């Protein structure tokens, strides 16, 4: 859709910070030597520091609140609010042993894993068919799938609620496992199509002549070569599932079935002014799995993000 007129985006280099462009290959620093250090201080480091501070402060605050004792949380004048010398794990303890938090965490994980597996399976087949089988109308179907990516859940949740109710799936994790793929399939199909296109067609032709079936082609030739794409798609699907809110809020009712985002918003928000510690502990514990996953697969995240946009 939007082929940049210049060279292809090299995704790994985006995060590694090594630019793929010609001038950087000779280890020179481009034209940045023209700028003096004080000038760079004002035009580069200061604004960058401010933006990064604003972007990360909520997490610092979340983490700090989660380990502060209650009396320090609410008394801003007696204790320095930006630091604590006696951290406590009380809030996490309450989370783990006095609430359904572990169960919610498990629900979220279960739904995310199942929905991701289903979506990846369906997307791999669909992407392969669109790119390689090129059946009649494949281009057209590809366009439709892209369009369906633009249909937001906030338009669909009301009719989906009635559908879910009709099928008797209301208040069951299955409702989420079956509806999340509608968000995930368009995205991951589009992403995988991009990866499949880069695999040389000749490899498959050879295998076809040797008598391989289409299924064998897909499993033994295409998939092993599209593993980076698969990882990107899996991670992104998983993140989207974890992040999804409106379907989970609408389709689930009983406390024990809820996913982490919904449960925290609904179950932890009572009138108690001391709730903040456990609320933030819950938010932190709910974010950590994704942040850890992210730390391991930064490159794949970025390639998934930009991959969905660049085609």
């Amino acid at each position, binding site marked *: 859709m*939007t082929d940049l*007129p210049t*060279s292809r*985006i090299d995704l790994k280099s*985006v*995060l590694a*910070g090594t630019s793929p462009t010609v*001038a950087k290959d000779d280890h020179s*620093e481009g*034209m940045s030597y023209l700028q003096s250090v004080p000038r760079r201080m004002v035009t580069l480091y200061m604004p*960058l520091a401010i*933006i*990064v501070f604003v*972007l990360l402060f*909520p997490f610092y*605050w*979340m983490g700090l609140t989660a380990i502060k004792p209650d009396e320090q*949380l*609410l008394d801003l004048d007696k204790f320095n609010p930006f630091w604590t010398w006696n951290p406590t794990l009380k809030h996490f303890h309450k989370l783990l042993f006095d609430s359904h938090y572990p169960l919610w965490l498990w629900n979220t994980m279960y739904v995310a894993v199942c929905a991701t597996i*289903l*979506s990846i399976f*369906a997307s791999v*087949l*669909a992407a*392969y*068919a669109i790119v390689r*089988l*090129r059946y009649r109308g494949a281009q057209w179907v590809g366009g439709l799938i892209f369009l*369906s990516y633009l249909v937001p859940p*906030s*338009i669909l*949740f*009301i*009719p989906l609620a*009635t*559908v879910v109710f009709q099928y008797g799936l209301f208040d069951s994790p299955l409702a989420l496992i*079956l509806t999340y*793929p509608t968000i995930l*399939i368009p995205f991951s*199909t589009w992403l995988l199509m991009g990866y499949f296109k880069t695999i040389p067609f000749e490899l498959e032709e050879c295998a076809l002549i040797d008598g391989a079936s*289409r299924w064998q082609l897909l499993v033994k030739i295409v998939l092993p070569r599209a593993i980076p794409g698969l990882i990107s798609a899996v991670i992104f699907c998983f993140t989207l599932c974890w992040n999804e*809110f*409106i379907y989970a*809020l*609408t389709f689930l009712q009983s406390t024990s079935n809820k996913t*982490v*985002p919904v449960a925290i*918003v609904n179950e932890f928000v009572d009138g108690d002014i001391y709730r903040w510690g456990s*609320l933030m502990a819950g938010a932190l514990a*709910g974010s950590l799995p*994704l*942040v850890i996953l*992210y730390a391991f697969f*930064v490159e794949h*995240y*970025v390639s998934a*993000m*930009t991959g969905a*946009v*660049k085609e």
Partner: protein
Amino acid sequence: MADIALQRRTARPPIREATAWDQLRTNRNWLGFWFMLPAMAFLILFLAYPLGLGIWISFTDAKIGRPGEYIGTENYEWLWGDTIFWLSVFNTLLYTAVASAIKFAIGLYLALLLNENMPFKAILRAMVLIPFIVPTVLSALAFWWIFDSQFSIISWSLKQVGLITENINFLGDVTWARICVIFANIWRGVPFVAITLLAGLQTVQPSLYEAATLDGASKWEMFRFITYPLLTPIIAVVMTFSVLFTFTDFQLIWAMTRGGPVNATHLMATLSYQRAIIAGQLGEGAAISSAMIPFLLAAIMVSWFGLQRRKWQQGENND
């Protein structure tokens, strides 16, 4: 020779006719159909069908637990005279316009900054993306706490500095509440815009800048006549996504204000949830969410045709 060739062929067992089973197994179109089946099943059952159903429900008086009857455009007529609905439309447009514009400006600025050479570049880029990774609701809760009316750290800091004497009622005041949710939305959206634009920036050849420097171009001219034109295609796509997801935002608002104070932050999505699920008026809620469709189509059209124009400007085909 021809005779021999003919004899050979008849001597061999005749080639088996392709059975219906063979057709199903190897014909390109049928194979395509089988491969598409799982994805299509999901998308038709849980996306296309509900999309149509939603529009149908908006023409009925359905309530929770009771299938409705066709009542024509009554829901829409009712909404037409409903000031809260119009307020939510206004809020949604304001929220989308302000948040998208600022997200674009800061995102582009951040991408330009991150594109410079500096130490710890990789770690910095990875950290910038974190707000995008963490589930929106959970970071919205952090903002809820930061914007607390009594214990807000911002109010406290400003009081220490001496800028204000009273706590700011961040989420209780109409204007402040709007500013706060827009701020939280920008905070979450900037990393996405910045990192995707950064990927675009890295494809721009440095030789172009060198040539421009030799020609005496200023920093601004380099940005205006090299960076920006080369980035437009990716900007158009990123902003389409950004506008779409901002327009249909639900979770941020629901976690921070639930539409309050006095409906000042109700977006169309949150209003439709409140009317349809909490109040049980499915028909009315569906009418509100169906009313979002024309806006979304308009947003897609604008960015799409913007994109086409840029392509043509760069001397490419309008394919």
